[in-house]
């Protein structure tokens, strides 16, 4: 099945973002935190997209923002999937009290509103990037746990899993060889969705001032720092917002296609 046009477009955009994120130091005309001009210089000339509130090059900040924001969102999502996916499969395969304990812990975590939970924990432990990553990853992993447990349970009741158990296979082998290969499709689709949520979540946190801290370039923070320009009908602060929107939409285009393939839906 050929990917529909929207998905191809989305894929191209995602690849461009990834490329920019990886080659940021080469692409960017200036240093990430380097003050190179006056405050709020206009577009064009030396500074293609002008400068920000303390005279850093906007384009450079945008490019580094791709690396920081997208990179951290990716790390968080991956971590959330490792924790949530693993525990979800374990709960589905073992069942019994292990499943009960894990599921109830997840229930409790999910009962607390996400932003409140993360803001609370971050104000306790500070906003260092490793803390940020771990806290959001744990928060997101509860959602991953729920999904993984549900899809893994559908696989766990299949005869081939029973045959593996009767053969005397270890729990690890059953999870790794029998269950995981049969649930990868929904998990990949969920990865895309989770990634955009995480991404929006950390930009929101940065906008509120609790996420990625200055002077590190971050799209959410950049919107906040330059927000005042809006009053002068200068659209520069909308550039990082547009970067966020474009990536979110593109990732969703790609996921739509993956989901469609995974579920065998008709076009």
């Amino acid at each position, binding site marked *: *099945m050929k990917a529909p046009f929207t998905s191809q477009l989305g894929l191209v955009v995602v690849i461009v973002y990834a490329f920019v994120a990886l080659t940021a130091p080469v692409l960017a005309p200036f240093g990430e935190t380097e003050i190179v001009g006056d405050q709020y210089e206009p577009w064009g000339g030396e500074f293609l997209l002008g400068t920000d509130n303390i005279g850093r090059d906007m384009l450079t900040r945008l490019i580094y923002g791709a690396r920081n924001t997208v990179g951290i969102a990716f790390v968080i999502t991956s971590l959330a999937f490792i924790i949530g996916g693993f525990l979800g499969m374990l709960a589905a395969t073992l069942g019994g009290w292990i499943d009960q304990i894990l599921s109830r812990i997840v229930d409790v975590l999910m009962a607390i509103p996400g932003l409140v939970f993360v803001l609370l924990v971050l104000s306790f432990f500070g906003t260092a990037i490793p803390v940020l990553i771990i806290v959001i990853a744990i928060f997101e992993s509860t959602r991953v746990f729920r999904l993984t447990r549900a899809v893994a349970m559908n696989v766990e009741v*299949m*005869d*081939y899993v*029973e*045959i593996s*158990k*009767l*053969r*005397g*296979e270890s729990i690890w082998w059953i999870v790794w*060889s*029998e269950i995981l*290969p*049969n649930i990868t499709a929904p998990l990949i689709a969920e990865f895309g969705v989770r990634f955009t949520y995480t991404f929006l979540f950390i930009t929101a946190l940065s906008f509120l001032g609790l996420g990625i801290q200055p002077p590190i370039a971050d799209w959410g923070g950049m919107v906040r720092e330059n927000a005042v320009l809006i009053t002068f009908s200068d659209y520069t602060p909308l550039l990082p917002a547009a970067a966020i929107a474009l990536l979110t939409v593109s990732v969703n285009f790609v996921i739509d296609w993956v989901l469609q393939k995974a579920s065998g839906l*008709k076009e």
Partner: protein
Amino acid sequence: MRTITNSTGDKVSDDIILEIRDLHIEGRTSETWQRIVNGVDVTLRRGEVLGLIGESGAGKTTVGLAAMGYTRDGCRISKGTIRFHDMDLVNASEKQRRALLGVRIAYVAQSAAAAFNPAHKLIDQHSETGIQHGVFSREEARADAMELYERLRMPDPQSIGLRYPHQVSGGQLQRAMTAMALACRPELVIFDEPTTALDVTTQIEVLAAIKSAVEQFQTAAIYISHDLALVAQMADRIMVFRNGDLIEEGQTRELLTHPKERYTQDLLAVRTFHKADTTTETTDVPLLEVRHLTAAYGKSPVLFNVSFSVPQGRTVALVGESGSGKSTTARVISGLLSPSEGQVLYQGVPLLPTFGQRSKTQLRRIQMIYQTPDTSLNPKQRIRKTIGRPLAFYLGMNGAVRDSRVRELLSLVELEPTQYIDRLPGELSGGERQRVCIARALAAEPELIVCDEVTSALDQLVAEEILKLLDRLQREFNLSYIFITHDIGTVRAIADDVVVMSQGKVVEMGPKTEMFTPPHHEYTDLLLSSVPEMDPDWLDNLLADRAD
């Protein structure tokens, strides 16, 4: 209003009610259209019963549905005409077709449990179509439903309609669906495998009900089944399908006595395989012994004091209908369910109740083969890994040694190794998958294989090949089998000893030869006499016998 009773005339009159000419139906596979039915002609006269027979994928259901001008999702009629009286069903508008369906043409599906809406009473569902189409009023419908229930010999016809679908048994539900189809006295009823999901003893009741109803109302019917013996009881004329082609058509008796085509002859010859009678010396200690097993799922007891033994090199068939506890017995033997009382002995040594407590060698010696090969093979594992895993796990084989053993095992189950070793289960047919399951069981070098309904999900000809294979392997490797089945034909073919179970108890057991010669236990007798035979008079004779 239409008249409710049809005129009684000759059984087969000359007026043609359904005429299908040169029907081609295509189904959509990802990008191309694939042919499902290639140019089939069907003519059906008033009051005639036509049997459609074939294996899965033969196109018989597709033709049956086409008789209503309907195709499944993703299918289309690419060529041909379908006429019901003088109405063109291919080009009929949705509205015209809707006026017809349920009133003049009705359909009885395979699974009544899935076809009834669980939230409404039987009698309400029964009347709905007729009331909607203005055939009768609610009161008339109810009175008529009770009469139909009585004619179909349902227990308590006055009040059974007030029950919900889950409150009646499978056989009763199937009869209720037949009654529902007959509610508007249609001219044509399509029965699509109406008894396939039922036990043999229940099947008889439903068959008898359908047959008498169709005869009484002079309804024309299309009876679809994969079982030639069943169709022979019902149909005046039979059409044999294979891969979307009509292979042969003929009057029932003519077709059964003088089949022209090779394929029809094969279908008739099915169930003729019998393993050679074995007289193995039974040793003092049987390979497996089941002693006084009592077991329950939660609080509902399913097994009561079940005892039998499996001698080395022999096949013990556990026979019974659904709910008889035969599969539960297998689960206890394999350690999936702990018995509340009794034990399982292997070569005189008691096995621990759950599989987790048993040693690797004990697990290796008893292997299982399941009913549905589709769910017992991991769809993401290539055959190489599926069969290779027990070799690595139990016997520590790796690399080239394991690979060549996998190839050996594939040849043993008559699959060409180089062609199959790298395939995924999705790229195999049902019979081939079951062969892979057998190879996987053999890979563990077991002494006992528990076969749980291994042939019931397969077409008859394929099933027979599997039975022959299992028999050959038994002789080659001196294997013992526990063969769980509801099908007496399978027992006849492969068993040495038979254990008949009913409602969690063993009713009778003994060597096969003894079991198939009278006198039988009452239940064994019922079970044996309920197995359809190719003789078209079998059902009538049986019903006459039982009436005495």
